[in-house]
């Protein structure tokens, strides 16, 4: 099983690189995951991460990309700019959430 080293702590990841335990997540972990994706986190990234985490905590499911954009005060295009190619998957991974299986 792959691991991630952050601030001297070893964090367990799934085979696909998602956090095994959300309790391991903090902002430094998010930065480290983002770095692996080649993303430098900006204010808008954090906004999306927060919306995604709240939504997931509330419903145990992922929003559609459209809903995520709306709730983050962004456009769908912005999500593709922030998290290139696979916006929902990359955002979920950096937010410490499981791999989304949403199809919207």
């Amino acid at each position, binding site marked *: 099983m792959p691991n991630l080293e952050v601030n001297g702590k070893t964090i367990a990841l799934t085979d696909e690189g998602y956090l095994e335990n959300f309790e391991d997540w903090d902002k430094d972990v998010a930065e480290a995951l983002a770095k692996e994706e080649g993303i430098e986190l900006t204010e808008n990234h954090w906004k999306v991460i927060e919306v995604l985490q709240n939504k997931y905590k509330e419903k145990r499911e992922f*929003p*559609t*990309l*459209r*809903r995520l954009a709306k709730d983050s005060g962004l*456009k*769908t*295009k912005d*999500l*593709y700019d922030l998290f290139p*190619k*696979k*916006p*929902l*998957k990359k955002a979920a991974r950096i937010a410490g959430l499981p791999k989304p299986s949403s*199809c*919207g």
Partner: protein
Amino acid sequence: MDNTEVKKLAIIISKNSIEDVYAGLIMANGAVMEGIETIVFFTFFGLDAITKKTMNNLKVDNYKAFLERMPLNGEMPENAQDFVTEQVKNMLDQMDIAPVDEFLEMIQAGGGKIYGCKLAVEMFNLKKEDLYDELDGIISVGEMYEMVGGAQIIYI
């Protein structure tokens, strides 16, 4: 990387019912969200989904199949097709699924391309200005195949 991974996909939509058009749009958007290079080619009646006048007024075709799957309160209304169409549109809205025009924008926001079939556009006597403004082009079948290259093709 898994060498069976789909890298490029073309979805051809030739029908104009909500169920057919949305099946295509949802698959296209799902592909774009996976980073797959995606082309959607609208032909024949599928052109209704990229024609300004009709794109947001598509109807359910197989309303009987929907009625078998949806709870119906009270009597079957006189115009069942319109009734079911309204129900389905509300359901899509509740599921955060965009109307057709916005759906096309979302696919393009992720880098997907939307094309109309030249032959069908001519056959139905449509003008460029009748069609969705952000269309990536009106192209021949030959041009579509060139663009598709070695992509997987889904026909609806």
